């Protein structure tokens, strides 16, 4: 935004869309899906208030909060990787993307542990309306994390090979990864925290 204001009228504004238009179509479409899940969740929450509140108490807030921190850290690493890749320091960008990916794997492990504990305690998907939403929404989110890990792996492959390096690819992957992070924050707030 600053760069637009600084340009003189005769110059072309140096506004740059990160990634490309295609990734934005996908991210906005996907956000629409999640927004729809959240609205439906809220409608059912209003209808079955007491069931939702009782069930929510059985969620593990510590693992939820830990996963939020892990994913935020991951997003930070990926954002730094984009900045570093733009300056041409691909070795450092590779390290940062790897760190982001490791955080993503850690998120998956913590999530699996959390699910395992809940299922072991008898809180399974068919138990009630709340757990139906809990497993479905966190499941779809986890599916997005796994796709994100695949995307980060593809970026790593490109960063290691000088002929394949494209800053736009790193940007597009980062946009997707930030979306996964953003969606998780809303999930954490709605499913774990909102009373």
């Amino acid at each position, binding site marked *: 935004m600053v760069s637009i204001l600084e340009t003189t009228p005769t110059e072309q504004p140096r506004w740059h869309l990160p990634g490309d238009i295609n990734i934005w179509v996908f991210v906005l*479409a*996907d956000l629409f899906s999640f927004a729809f*899940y959240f609205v439906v969740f809220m409608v*059912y929450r209003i209808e079955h208030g007491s069931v939702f509140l009782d069930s929510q108490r059985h969620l593990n807030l510590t693992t939820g909060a830990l996963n939020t921190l892990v994913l935020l850290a991951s997003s930070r690493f990926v954002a730094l990787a984009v900045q570093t890749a733009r300056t041409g320091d691909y070795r450092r960008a590779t390290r940062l993307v790897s760190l982001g990916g490791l955080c993503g794997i850690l998120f998956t492990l913590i999530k699996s542990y959390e699910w395992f504990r809940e299922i072991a305690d008898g809180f399974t998907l068919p138990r009630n*309306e709340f757990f139906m939403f809990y497993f479905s929404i966190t499941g779809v989110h986890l*599916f997005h994390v796994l796709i994100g890990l695949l995307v980060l792996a593809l970026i790593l492959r490109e960063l290691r090979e000088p002929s394949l390096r494209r800053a736009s690819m790193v940007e597009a992957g980062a946009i997707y990864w930030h979306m996964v992070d953003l969606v998780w924050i809303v999930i954490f707030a709605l499913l774990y925290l909102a009373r």
Partner: protein
Amino acid sequence: MTGATAALPARVSARDDQRSPKLDLWICWWVFPAFYTLFGLIFVVLTRVMPPPRPGVGVDQINSFFHAHGTTIKLGFALLMVFIGLASVTNGLVAFQMKRMSVKPIFTYAYIATLAVGAVPGALFAAFAFLAAVFRPDRDPHLVALLYDVGLLTFVGSLGCFTTNYLVLALAIALDKNKVFPMWMAYITFWQIATELLAAPVFVFQKGAFAWNGAISFYEGTVIFVVFLGCLIVLLRRAIQQQPMDELVQD
């Protein structure tokens, strides 16, 4: 006879090329919106499969549903049996455009195969279950209820063929270097996959957002399918317009 037919193609194609180039492709393209409009009319207006009636109802209500809609179910699904074959023309057109892509034709074969198999649980099974339910109005009401469940569970819950179908189409578009379809269509197709996955709980729930008439398992998936279909029809039109007349398509 043989000599006459052998001489014919060259003469006809020279004239034909000038008058209506790509007529064959345009005929197939028009089948696409026509077929899906008819499909929508049959499933929404006539047979009442979409939006699906409620899963958590008693035997009496199920039987009165079939009594109320018996005639339109027969009419609608009889129409479907006449026209269902047109689905192969629409799939053939997409498969043909996929063959123009730089990817190996395996994606095309998988695309055709998944939809050919998917037509059975995705449309035909439901149609025959409903047709059987209204065929003998004096049938044991519990058996009619069984046909209701079978019809609607297969219709909303048939996932595997379609997720694979979207996956091969999305991958083909994403990996294609000829840019037959724009990259965003690959993303729209990927987007479809996640919504299909959320229809999996229909086998568990009789009410709520994840039942077969639920906001998430049915309505969201259907809205996104309509968006996907609209994009596909528009992009197929563009692809046909941009396709060079003398282009050779791989076998």
